[in-house]
């Protein structure tokens, strides 16, 4: 699991590439949480490179998004595709965390 984190104009940009299965979540969760939550970040997360996600990946996003919201931060996911998008839809994740089709709409949503 590969993760890139950068910042641009007050928004943290996270790129995830690979599989958000149990080993993948184990590899990134602590680092992602530490990069976003203490600073109450406004963050957009690119899922276009994620080829697999299970319930543990959903749990990771819910836990981080909730921690951010409590500190007036925000997380927006964008560009899930294929079966990853189906998993997010099955769990109705977009009812509680914004899921946008691309980076531009994600940026607008995270700044709203």
């Amino acid at each position: 699991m590969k993760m890139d984190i950068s910042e641009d104009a007050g928004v943290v940009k996270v790129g995830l590439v690979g599989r958000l299965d149990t080993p993948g979540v184990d590899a990134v969760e602590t680092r992602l949480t530490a990069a976003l939550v203490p600073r109450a970040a406004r963050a957009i997360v690119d899922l276009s490179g994620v080829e697999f996600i299970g319930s543990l990946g959903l749990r990771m996003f819910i836990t981080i998004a909730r921690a951010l919201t409590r500190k007036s931060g925000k997380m927006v996911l964008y560009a899930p595709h294929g079966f990853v998008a189906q998993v997010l839809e099955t769990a109705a994740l977009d009812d509680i965390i914004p899921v946008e089709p691309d980076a531009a709409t994600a940026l607008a949503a995270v700044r709203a």
Partner: protein
Amino acid sequence: MSSAAADGSRRLQLKLPATPAGFSRGFDELRHGLDALPLDPRARFGVELVFEEVVANVLRHGCRPNGETRIQLEVALEHDAVRLVFEDDGPPFDPRERPDPAPPTDLEHAPTGGRGLMLIRRFSSGLEYLRTPEGRNRLTVTVPRVQRDGKR
């Protein structure tokens, strides 16, 4: 030590310890074995998702307090479906008794977990559980090879 074998009968067998390292190795071996099977992308994703959720559940809830729980998996490629039979020697656990979580209403009150079985149900067409006379959990999950529109 886990092992995998795919033979001409289109079956794949795995044995792995219910540990994080066993999970990771077992998943790699499963994916390698699946590469040799003619599966459409949805069935392939479904098989991997079922493995992820079932094995993660055994790691979280099904390990014996003393001694190592071992998981055995057989994947059989049938005409219209892939049948996955998981066996473990952990405490009795019938996942069919677990209801799906209620739809989330807001982020603050959304449950963090409990979605694994819901995902299994979405990507499978059958879920059977048996506590064997030998004291093992046997979970059989059927993943369809044919989509609802009739395409394979």
